[in-house]
């Protein structure tokens, strides 16, 4: 379960990929932006700054050595073998109940409700 492909030790002076996370504006979560090649964290931050913030598109940056990311190796663990659809709300059809409730309260059907089912 905890098997992973991460944690390989860094070799000084050798370029390797660093994943860059950035916050676009205050209050946003950190989101993955892309990656840079660098030999260490200092230069990775320099390059991340050039690639992901020189046009003021970030207010915060992180870099994470890709080798330090632990990757779930067995992707089959993410695919349940049995039907678990009862865990999802998709089975409940709300359209008719909503229409009835609207009629009762005298409200019009709202616009742009393509997602309603």
């Amino acid at each position, binding site marked *: 379960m905890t098997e992973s492909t991460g944690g390989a030790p860094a070799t000084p*002076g050798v370029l390797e990929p660093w994943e860059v996370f950035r916050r676009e504006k205050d209050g946003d979560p950190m989101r993955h932006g892309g990656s840079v*090649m660098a030999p260490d964290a200092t230069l990775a931050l*320099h*390059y991340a700054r*050039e690639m992901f913030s020189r046009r003021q598109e970030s207010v915060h940056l992180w870099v994470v050595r890709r080798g330090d990311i632990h990757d779930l190796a067995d992707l089959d663990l993410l695919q349940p073998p049995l039907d678990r659809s009862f865990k999802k709300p998709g089975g409940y059809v709300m359209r008719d109940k909503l229409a009835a409730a609207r009629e009762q309260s005298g409200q019009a059907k709202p616009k742009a409700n393509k997602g309603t089912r």
Partner: protein
Amino acid sequence: MTDFAAFEPLAIDFTGAGDGRVRALALLLLTMADDEFVIGFSDSEWTGIGPILEEDVAISSLAQDELGHAQALYGLLTDTVADGRDADAWAYDRPPEGYLHARLLDHHRGDWAATIARRYLYDTADSARLEAVASSSHRPLAELVAKIRREERYHLMHVQTWIERLADAGGESRARLLAALEAMGPDAGTVLAPLPGEPSLLRHGIIAEPFATMEARWRDGVGATFRRLGLPDLPPTSDPAHARSGHSDAFRALHAELTMVRRSEVGATW
């Protein structure tokens, strides 16, 4: 100390410049602008051929920053001299001998180690100079320098990171760095060589301290870094009286290139 006469090719008319304040200020602005312009243009030659893609973007961006500083400083000069020349005219319409950049920047950008060595020597010296004009009595300069220093802080971090890596790497990296420092060392101090208008600059509070004080502070800082990295001490400045004149063939070639488009259609609007 160089005499104003050495800068004749500038053809600035200082008639009525009073006690020399305007003349001294113009010379300070022009030397700062030319330094930034020449190193910016020279380092921009790495665009497309940087050691790795990320560094290519980084050095190109730093070079653009320097050109931006030059543009702003030429703008202040335009306001000070007010002889009808705009920033572009100052940047592009002078003969090579009319440029007043320091001799350190007459060196060709060379290999990557030479570029880093030159950037390190220049940025650290420029930082000492910026500190001395940060509280300048010339308000537009003080305001501009406050902005420039925010960018230069990152430039210093970048070049410090690189010189440490080249020095610590040993082998060819260190050998090339040592060769570059040996070639440029005697010219490093030219950035802070006293200007002819220094007494006036001090009297009017345009600079906060003499160039010799800036240079001593700069040498202390560089000396500490070099000792830590096991690099030889910087030699004293050679021929400081000609710190900003008698430019090299490398600069003449650079000048021919950087003025090429401008000269191709005189008076054109781009």
